[in-house]
């Protein structure tokens, strides 16, 4: 059952030292910035972070890396024009990197949530990122065997949650949210608004509440109910 908490600090209390944390977002779109700030504030460390990027500028994941709270990053695209904190930590040998093609990252997360033990993907076959991995030819095409990526906690962002924990997202901010919600043992969501049970059309729910453990709204509930979707 989904719990609703008032602050981002309470929401991230399930993250422990050494946890694997799935962080939603593609660039800034869908990045749960307030939850990451609360994680920074909480002092938890020795984290493995799974995210498409490895932090930009001087906020969010970039600050977690700057403060050396991240032991390892599993991502597809760490190097960006403003990823200076990642760059510094990586070059200093103080941050482990597992580089994963973006679609394999998404599918490995999906596999974790879907109870798939491993899967053969064509992406990366014959490249250095598949070195040492099992390969197989199936029906004339070559594949690499990839395994699930599970999280202890997922921190994601959605547009709205109802009282059942059902989520809807907004435009390309949806990105990794749905697969990460299913891939983590405990999923924490920051939403712009909470709406009453029954106000989301059951046909349009993207992430059912079964995948959502903790929700926090960035604005007080009272002011939001009138805007219910």
């Amino acid at each position: 059952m989904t719990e609703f908490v008032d602050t981002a600090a309470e929401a991230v209390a399930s993250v422990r030292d050494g946890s694997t944390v799935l962080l939603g977002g593609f660039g800034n779109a869908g990045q749960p910035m307030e939850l990451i700030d609360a994680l920074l504030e909480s002092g938890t460390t020795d984290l493995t972070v799974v995210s498409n990027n490895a932090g930009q500028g001087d906020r969010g994941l970039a600050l977690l890396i700057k403060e050396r709270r991240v032991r390892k990053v599993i991502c597809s695209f760490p190097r960006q024009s403003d990823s200076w904190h990642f760059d510094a930590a990586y070059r200093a040998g103080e941050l482990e990197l597992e580089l994963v093609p973006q679609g394999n990252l998404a599918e490995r997360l999906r596999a974790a949530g879907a109870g798939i033990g491993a899967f053969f993907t064509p992406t990366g076959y014959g490249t250095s990122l598949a070195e040492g991995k099992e390969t197989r030819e199936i029906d004339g095409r070559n594949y690499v065997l990839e395994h699930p990526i599970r999280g202890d906690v997922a921190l994601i962002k959605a547009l709205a949650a109802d009282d059942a924990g059902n989520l809807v997202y907004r435009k390309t901010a949806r990105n990794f949210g749905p697969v990460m919600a299913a891939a983590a043992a405990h999923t924490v969501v920051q939403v712009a608004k909470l709406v009453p049970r029954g106000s989301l059309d059951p046909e349009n729910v993207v992430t059912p509440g079964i995948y959502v453990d903790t929700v926090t709204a960035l604005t007080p509930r009272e002011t939001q109910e009138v805007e219910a979707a």
Partner: protein
Amino acid sequence: MSSQTSPASQTSHSAQPDDAPQPGQPLSREDLAKLVAADIAPGSYVNLGIGQPTKVSDYLTPEQQVTLHTENGMLGMGPQAHGDDIDEELINAGKIPVTELPGASYFHHADSFAMMRGGHLDVCVLGAFQVSAGGDLANWSTGAPDAIPAVGGAMDLAIGAKEVFVMMSLFAKDGTPKIVADCTYPVTGLGCVSRVYTDHGVFLIETHEDGPRLVLREAYGIAPEDLVKRFDFPVVIAG
């Protein structure tokens, strides 16, 4: 389907007098459903299999806030639909028209079975032909040579929840227990059952370092000491 057992059908292991005090009566099908419902933790996501398990929903209370899943693509399923509420596009896995509760959601078959396979449901309640002492489940096929096979979602349900509860009558028509050392019917899944709710007793299949252990939590209509003697393998009486 529940078969009352006569003393004559008891095995020779039974050394206790047949007239030992019986704590109450065997459970009726309704009482069994009530018992299972009461054992489901508040806030759980639950899939109730076709047949006897469906009856559990009659005894779930609103306070329990249990969300029902149906594997044909829905969470938040309500009671069976009647009369004008019948909608042939809103059915459960048994193809019976049902209703939709506030907070429901629909999804496609691959997403629905991913939800089960991924271990997100808390409890699945299933019927069975047999359960082994180690938690193997047999409920999809009698293995009759001339039968047309059909499996549906049985094998997915068997591995599709954090806990799998089985509901069945304890004894077969020949008086032998349907909890067995090894399933003789074709199995649906291995080591997947965690509890067996029967008319004569509730059994827990516990995981221990030295392997699974079959524990009798409570007996109904028969003394625990007598009940465990009906098995030709060890059954621990809960202390």
